[in-house]
């Protein structure tokens, strides 16, 4: 059973990562920086519980805030560039963060052992959960409480005027400006919210794996972050969670016997999905259909 709980943990954290990219994608920005915010959150939360002795909840709040602050700072200069240039700029940021942690040593002696990040060796012994006697199931439930919470908030935001404004900017920046929408405020705020979600996800990730290292926060993770909302579709937050379950549960775990060939399959799948369903698994017509079948509610689109 623990195997499935562990899998659910991975899926939960990856859903958070995907949701952090989802809100940025709504504004039409393709950001490869989400893995960087995730890394910042992971190291920050780990250091707070291990070195500063904080409890998990305040540590996660801090990692989330830090993720938001970094994303906001990245957002201002990065969002002045568009399209491919933005992809490259955010990719460069993500790699810079990774290299920073590759070189980051901050060890403190705790009860005879040295703890804390140690460059390329990574940051071991983030043992808040085992030390406090949490079972795998409890950790899994803890993670999914956050996933559901974040999904609920984003779902509500999506239906608010702010959500409509995000989508308006994503569709046509020129028209959005022309009806008085401040592009910088909208894009930077979306980036900041995305950074908060990624920082939270990273903080959780650090604690359930107990061992983080720079290599986990590379381009592959940044690609995953984008792949979930793109595969799942931008119609609603549910697409992202469906895609995370599919990719992590089926592709990565279910096909483990294929070894590294899975990555090839992953690439092929994205190409295939983008051709077959350019708007994602759960595109607007599919969502309307689901609503009609299960909701009976008028399809307000």
């Amino acid at each position, binding site marked *: 059973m623990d195997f499935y709980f562990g899998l659910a943990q991975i899926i939960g954290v990856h859903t958070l990562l995907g949701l952090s990219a989802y809100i940025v994608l709504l504004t039409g920005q393709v950001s490869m920086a989400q893995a960087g915010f995730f890394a910042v959150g992971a190291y920050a939360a780990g250091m707070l519980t291990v070195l500063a002795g904080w409890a998990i909840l305040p540590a996660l709040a801090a990692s989330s805030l830090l993720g938001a602050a970094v994303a906001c700072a990245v957002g201002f200069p990065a969002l002045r560039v568009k399209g491919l240039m933005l992809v490259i700029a955010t990719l460069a940021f993500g790699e810079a963060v990774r290299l920073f942690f590759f070189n980051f040593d901050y060890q403190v002696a705790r009860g005879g052992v040295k703890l804390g990040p140690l460059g390329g060796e990574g940051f071991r012994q983030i043992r808040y959960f085992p030390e406090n006697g949490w079972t795998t199931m409890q950790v899994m439930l803890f993670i999914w409480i956050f996933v559901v919470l974040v999904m609920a908030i984003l779902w509500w*935001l999506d239906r608010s*005027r702010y959500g*409509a404004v995000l989508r308006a900017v994503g*569709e046509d920046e020129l028209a959005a400006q022309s009806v008085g929408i401040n592009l910088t405020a909208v894009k930077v705020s979306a980036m900041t919210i995305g950074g908060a979600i990624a920082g939270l996800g990273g903080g959780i990730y650090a604690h359930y794996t107990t061992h983080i290292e720079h290599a986990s926060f590379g381009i592959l993770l940044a690609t995953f972050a984008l792949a979930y909302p793109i595969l799942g579709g931008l119609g609603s937050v549910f697409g992202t969670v469906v895609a995370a379950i599919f990719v992590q549960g089926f592709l990565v775990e279910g096909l483990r016997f294929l070894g590294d060939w899975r990555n090839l399959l992953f690439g092929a799948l994205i190409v295939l999905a983008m051709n077959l369903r350019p708007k994602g698994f759960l595109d607007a017509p599919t969502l309307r259909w689901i609503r009609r079948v299960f909701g009976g509610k008028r399809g*307000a689109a």
Partner: protein
Amino acid sequence: MALLELKSVSRHFGGVRAVDGLDLVIEPGQIFGLIGPNGSGKSTTVNLITGLFPLTSGSIVFQNEDLEKLPTHLRLQTGIARTFQNIRLFGQLTAWQNLWVAQNSPADWAKRGFFSRWLGGQSGVREEISQLLEFSGLAHRQDELAANLAFGEQRRLELARALATRPKLILLDEPAAGMNTEEIGQLRERILKIRAQGTTVLLVEHVMELVMGVTDRIAVLNFGQKIAEGTPVEVQADAAVRKAYLGGGE
């Protein structure tokens, strides 16, 4: 006192003088026509007034305020709205939402307060959106995605979206393009109603029956320069205008 004044405004694209030393004065309450052959700089003039790109030289003054430093979204908040020659709606938003996201005037902001300005705020604005949809003959289409509307409906929605920003001056870039005679008649009624509500109109148009029938004053552009200005009757009688339209070709 003039509402909008262009003082020897120029905009060059490389070697092309899209707008070349243009002077224009629009008084409050006017319906001002801007006509001229294709490529004469009409759309560029509209783009310059809304700040899509900077002037090469000259200045634009709106309500005694020099617009040069103001980015597009702040120009809107001073009261300048527009429609596009090629319709630019938010296709994946509903008709209703297209108007919702456009409510960025200071009056709407004050009404809603910070949180509801961004987040909820449907209650205070519902009525105005309904009125605008009614005004545009789109009330029955409010939940339709803008992309799924018919061409004429899209044009009406874009006009309604501009009105949702509560403009003092509205710039209409060829609003009658592609419309049939009946639709043009309805558009004419709408433009007159917009003016009656106190909004000044700059009408860029090719359709002469509309421009001549509805405007108070007309300026004629050719190769980025103003070649004539006056009442519709004066402009129609102008020799240079006849030459630009008949000789210059479309």
